[in-house]
């Protein structure tokens, strides 16, 4: 761990209370983010990638609770942090960008208020100054006529513009860490590229970024580190380039093989059979074993721990060395 590490998550566990009993949505999530580093948490539906990130800020519903692990941010553990201390971190030190700005901004409050209020809450600046900063931030994310637009309500902006405004909302306060939860899923490819460029600028300023995405293209384009999750567990973690080059875990390999690029016309798709596993019905041992071509009845029914496959890379499969 270097001095630059902003956040260090270790063995995080999150449970949900459901009608069918307790469900472990996140079961052992570990990664760290350094200043200026972008970590991609990649996975499919129900893999726990978003729950894991939101739990850091205590933004889960009441039915959820963190049952284990720690998340050291700036020397303090976010897990079990008192509400007051947590509030000082939320929005100020750790910002968050949501998937859909339409849903993540109140329809009845003007942009101005939504962009400035937390500056005032955190005592960053005065109201007038906050307004200046918000206008500037809007300009920076490429919204024309920010002075006029700031008086509008979110629904009066186009989708792309709303998404930018939300990024302005999270970044105007210059947080140390940014959690971006599928920030481009709801927008078109051309807009996606622009949004990512905006986030890149933040990264270059030294902000650490946790990017939650199901899109490997986005992850690869933007992030330095890949954390691949499956059924609430991390199956592989390591530098992005090496991960793309030769994924170690069979699931990660399958995922990469399923991803279609332009120019893949003649590449044969590698298909993972079966359906993604639901965390509520996770099989014992390796969660992927029911879909894994390499599954071995003896080895895979035991829990797989993350083991180093190469420097800086870990994977949760006993055969992962075979592929590196």
């Amino acid at each position, binding site marked *: 761990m270097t001095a630059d590490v902003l956040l260090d998550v270790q063995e995080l566990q999150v449970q949900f209370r459901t009608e069918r009993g307790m469900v472990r949505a996140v079961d052992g999530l570990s990664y760290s983010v350094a200043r200026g580093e972008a970590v991609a948490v990649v996975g499919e539906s129900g893999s726990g990638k978003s729950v894991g990130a939101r739990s850091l800020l*205590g*933004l*889960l*519903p*009441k039915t959820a609770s963190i049952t284990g692990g720690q998340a050291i941010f700036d020397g303090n553990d976010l897990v079990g942090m008192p509400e007051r201390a947590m509030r000082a971190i939320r929005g100020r030190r750790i910002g968050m960008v949501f998937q859909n700005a339409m849903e993540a901004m109140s329809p009845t409050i003007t942009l101005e208020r939504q962009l400035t209020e937390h500056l005032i809450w955190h005592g960053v600046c005065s109201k007038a100054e906050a307004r200046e900063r918000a206008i500037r931030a809007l300009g920076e994310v490429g919204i024309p006529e920010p002075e006029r637009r700031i008086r509008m309500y979110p629904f009066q902006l186009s989708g792309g513009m709303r998404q930018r405004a939300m990024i302005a909302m999270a970044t105007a306060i210059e947080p140390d860490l940014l959690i971006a939860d599928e920030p481009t899923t709801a927008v078109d490819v051309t807009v996606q590229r622009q949004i990512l460029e905006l986030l890149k600028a933040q990264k270059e300023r030294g902000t650490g970024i946790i990017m939650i995405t199901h899109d490997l293209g986005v992850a690869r384009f933007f992030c330095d580190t890949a954390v691949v999750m499956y059924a609430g567990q991390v199956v592989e973690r390591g530098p992005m380039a090496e991960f793309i080059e030769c994924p170690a875990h069979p699931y990660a390999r399958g995922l990469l093989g399923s991803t279609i690029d332009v120019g893949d016309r003649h590449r044969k798709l590698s298909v993972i059979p079966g359906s993604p596993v639901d965390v509520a019905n996770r099989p014992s041992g390796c969660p992927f074993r029911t879909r894994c071509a390499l599954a071995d009845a003896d080895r895979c029914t035991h829990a797989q721990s993350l083991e180093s496959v190469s420097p800086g890379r870990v994977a949760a499969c006993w055969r992962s060395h075979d592929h590196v």
Partner: protein
Amino acid sequence: MAVPHTMPKRSVQAAAVVATAALALSACSIFGDGDTDPTVGAGGENDAQVLRTTWSNPESLDPHVISNGIWIDQQGLFEGLVVQNSTGSDVEAGTADEWEVSEDGTVWTFHLRDDASWSNGDAVTAQDFLWTYERLLTPGGSGAGNTTGANSYQVALGIANASEFLAGTVTDFAEVGIEASADDQLVFTLDAPNPGFLLGLTHPSMLPLHPATLEEFPQEWTEPENWVSNGPFVLDEWQRNVEMTLVPNENYWDTENVHLDEVEIQLYASGEPVSPVAYDNDEVDLMQLVGEDVFSYVDNPEFTDQIRAVEQRNITYLALLRSTNPVLEDVRVREALSLALGREIVAGLQPGVAVARSLVPEYLGAEHGLGQDEDIARAQELLADAGYHDGEGFPELMLLTEAPRPELDVAVDQWAENLGVTATVNNVERGVYVEERWSIQDTPGFYSGSFITRTNWNDAINTTFNPRTMEEFSLPAEVWEEYQEVQADEDLDPGERASQLQALRDAHASAGAQEFTALAAEGSSQPDLEAATGYFVDAAEVRDDLYLYLPVTLIDANYLVRPGVEGLNLRGTPDVYYFKGVSITGE
């Protein structure tokens, strides 16, 4: 979302402030003047004598418009030539302090007292009375609102040409037998001697009105700010449907005998549950117990000294409905139904209810045997005679009513059990009831009604189910239809209409009904009360034997009167008592 367990207090406070403000605002404007003080009353420490009582909500206070209001006029707002004595059996001096009658009993001369004056200070004159009576008798009423003619009541007084003027056959009021021979002298000329004339003058329609006020405010004269009257009290406040306040008339001639400083009358809307809660809660000092409330007070030792009964004040009856089905045109059938009505059962259901055997209350001294009694064996016999043995082939009967009444349920039950006759109760709204009573039904049956019993023989014969009405009742259905057409014919001039109706009655009314008419007329023309009563008793008997109506029960009126209310003379009349003379003594 994890959420805090605190409440946004500020919005709650804001809402509370708004609510308080709204309450405060509304309190200033929408309530009545609000000068009533519920703690002041019979039990209160205050010296002011305030009588708090209840009355059925009056639609109007015009004594010429039939509504509950005319009895309030009578109770103390206006004063007629004469007023009733404490039992209602005779009259005492009112605005007139003296009167005499000619020897033939047809000319009555009244002398107004010198100090009789209106509440605005004007003297009460004979011309005022004359003006009032012209207003009363003018066909169609004088003011736009005077539509419900109390004038028809006055037919019974027998004032010369009064009915003719009312009917339109006489158009010059000067021909009517009322004359103001001097400012303080009023002379009535009657067609025939009338032993009921003096008591008849105590009807609210004979109260004097203040001509100047009525001419200035044809409609609004009953508003407190325009109010002028000659009685012991004047209208101080009238919050419609809620409350009326009367205060003493300073210009009244007999203020010494007016003890109350204020009368508060809670006005109960029709159908409103008149719960004695108001009495228990010390909101009123005097109220009538209505319907089922008698159970918790009458015969309750705790209230023995607070209950005052007016015996046999009301009589309930079933009256014949006109029907295309002639089954009830057979008097034997009607008698049979009457004899098996179950009166004893009804009387046993509630305290203060007695069997009614005649339309005339027992206390007038009618001998036993007058009227209708119960005899099931006889009833069955009669029905069999009429051709309906055990009710076979008897059509279903309808009992029309505008409120649930136990006697109807009992009748249905008893008729079915004893006579094999089925009947259904048809409970309809007032508007329907009033119309249906007079229209011709497909189903034979009766309508249910009740009267305030008449406290003297004259009224008992000549007002409730008077001769003309009895003749009308006895008309066969098809004649009744024709009769109503004549009544409704706008093209006929009034005189012509009256004579056509008379002709129809003469031709088709039953012999019994015509006999009743003759006996009643004979009685009314007797100058001597006793002689008259003889005829009236006979007439009553004839009337009851027609079985065109079946008397059911006589019902006591029970009043809750708070201890300390003195000088209260409850009478069997519709106005019940006068405010004058009532006082409240601190206990």
